[in-house]
């Protein structure tokens, strides 16, 4: 179902404008990134449910069908396996399809196509077949939605070799990263933090062009230091980066200096950036909304324990979802890694 108050995205912010810095919502930044990618490469096309006249249930594709036509912005039948499966075929024919899955919980009809076909095409053809498909997935909770609309399935895809799994946390990153994802020759799972779609920040619309073809991009998305600090490293991604930054601001008033690392990519994970930080702070807390059990944080904790054993002053802690289905909206505040739980973990590692 299309759910949850999805008011029209901020309509200001000039669609045609090519440069300069603008204050944009994360949703609008992705919209402009898609637009830029479509202008740059005529083989880029969008497909998904309700992405045409409606502009998607989150309005991320707003106005694109009007400007690029219904051959390049395709309202597909209601069939996720069909969307991804045909995107694979289109990619084999030289197109660069960008699929929208309406909500995280509805990706599973496509799970077979993604994991058994898309992820393995390059490997089994020994590099002869490239499938540069991007799959955009609004994910995560905190918007008071009904069942299947708040899930964080990224680890399931990160566990599958052959897929790149990335997630922006800010409008500026969203604008650049969607273009990098589309330019990437590998399949990319592009997880969009839906609770942050309406967050606004400055977006540099000129920087993107170099970054899309810049060093490391588009294949390898590096982590960034979202806020420097000296006592504890908080590693987060997607929607949790904002929570981590809020925690850092709150901890500062109590005299604890937190460094926030925005991972930006879950596969590959930029372990070097995390290890660098941990060597300076000696403490690590990983934050994500997905269940901690066998989640991305488990991998990071294991790897950092291995690589930074002698630098760690405390065990690596994780703050995340529980090993339960995503609960009803009335309980999601207790389920999600909120500010209090993050600070609790920070206090715990500081006590060592």
């Amino acid at each position, binding site marked *: 179902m299309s759910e949850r108050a999805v008011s029209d995205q901020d309509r200001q912010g000039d669609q045609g404008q090519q440069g300069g810095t603008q204050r944009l919502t994360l949703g609008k930044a992705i919209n402009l990134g898609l637009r830029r990618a479509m202008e740059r490469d005529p083989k880029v096309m969008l497909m998904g449910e309700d992405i045409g006249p409606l502009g998607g249930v989150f309005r991320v594709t707003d106005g694109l069908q009007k400007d690029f036509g219904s051959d390049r912005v395709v309202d597909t039948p209601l069939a996720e396996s069909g969307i991804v499966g045909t995107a694979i075929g289109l990619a084999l024919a030289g197109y660069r399809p960008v699929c929208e899955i309406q909500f995280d*919980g509805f990706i599973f*009809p496509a799970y077979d196509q993604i994991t058994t076909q898309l992820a393995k095409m390059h490997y089994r053809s020994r590099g002869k077949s490239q499938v540069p498909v991007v799959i955009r997935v609004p994910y995560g909770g905190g918007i008071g939605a009904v069942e299947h609309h708040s899930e964080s399935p990224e680890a399931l895809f990160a566990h599958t070799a052959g897929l790149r799994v990335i997630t922006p946390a800010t409008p500026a990153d969203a604008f650049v990263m969607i273009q990098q994802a589309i330019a990437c020759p590998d399949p990319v799972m592009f997880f969009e933090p839906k609770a942050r779609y309406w967050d606004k920040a400055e977006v540099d619309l000129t920087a993107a062009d170099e970054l899309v073809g810049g060093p490391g991009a588009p294949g390898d998305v590096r982590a960034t230091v979202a806020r420097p600090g000296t006592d504890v490293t908080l590693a987060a991604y997607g929607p949790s980066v904002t929570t981590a930054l809020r925690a850092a601001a709150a901890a500062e008033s109590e005299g604890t200096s937190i460094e926030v690392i925005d991972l930006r990519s879950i596969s590959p994970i930029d372990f070097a950036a995390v290890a660098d930080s941990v060597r300076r702070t000696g403490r690590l807390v990983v934050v994500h909304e997905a269940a901690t059990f066998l989640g991305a944080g488990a991998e990071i904790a294991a790897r950092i324990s291995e690589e930074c054993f002698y630098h760690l002053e405390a065990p690596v802690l994780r703050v995340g979802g529980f090993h339960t289905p995503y609960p009803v909206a009335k309980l999601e505040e207790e389920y999600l890694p909120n500010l209090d739980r993050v600070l609790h973990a920070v206090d715990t590692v500081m006590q060592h």
Partner: protein
Amino acid sequence: MFTPDVDGVTTPVGETDDDLIQLLTPTGERVHHESYSPRVDHLDRAALEGLYRDMYLVRRFDSEATSLQRHGELGLWPPSLGQEAAQIGSGRAMSSRDYAFPSYRELGVIWTRGVDLRSTLHIFRGEDHGGWDPNAHNCHLYTLVIGSHALHATGYAMGIQRDGDVGTGDPGRDRAAVAYFGDGATAQGDVSEALTFASVNDAPVVFFCQNNQWAISEPTQRQSRVPLYHRGRGFGVPSVRVDGNDVLACHAVTSEALERAKAGGGPTFIEAVTYRMGAHTTSDDPTRYRSRAEEETWRRRDPLDRMRLLLEREGSPSEFFAGLEAEAEQFGAEIREYCHTIAAPPVERIFDDVYATEQSQITRERTWLTEYLAGFEEVAS
């Protein structure tokens, strides 16, 4: 004839459609149909008034819930406005032993199963994922993942076969399952697979597709280039297209399909041609994708209006309508009041019922959260 409209503008199926089963016109006149009329001829005035009452109260509940959402009491609401005849007509054709598998807009169906409609408020208030005991009503929970329950209904029907509850000729014993889904759902692989399984197994299942013309913003023509009921035929499943705003026709075709299923004749696919008069959900903005004129056309085919015209013609007294209105008023007030009493569940509910038996991972996490939250209380006191 069905003409796919390439411009993406829906051409509502008109009354001129030869294949469309209709027993009651939009102006409230009865239409004779050789094989289907006898299935509703036995309905006396009281029975017809009963069907009207069903539709009227369900509509009242729906409008009350829609306004509760507008007042911030519900997170979301999927209105069923306009689809009452399809839901009540088909739902009332089931016996208590049949099993319904609804989608997420099936107020009328769950009403006919005896489910307290107020249960749905728990779902959309973010308090419960289900809301009722499926086995107490032979009515499965709402399913939000499009099309997946078509397979569950088919599997359930295969279970009925294995229990020997098909073709015994004993109406107290024979049973069937009914799957409810929309026009968009027919594009899902799961629905095609359900048709395949039902067909090759002769499963006693009825696929009841409410073609309400829209899957959120996409018209039916974006899902199919043939009329939806032709889909069933391609799988070897007898298929019929019915006026979904005609409660009598929906009742008749469903009762025929159920009779065949229970006799061992296998599945049926029913396409009920109707219209979603409201938004897809309260988050949706239909002005972005459909015209006022289209909505107006369908408003003239309102399923309740035509039934009222029939009842007036058959002599229902004005007291009947006045009484019903008063009943609906009272019902509306109860719904509002009830909604306000729904409290947030206790935090431990997060961990309840994940598994049927204790699982150490869950126990550990429940203990952790309970102790963690207790820490706050200590600080506060």
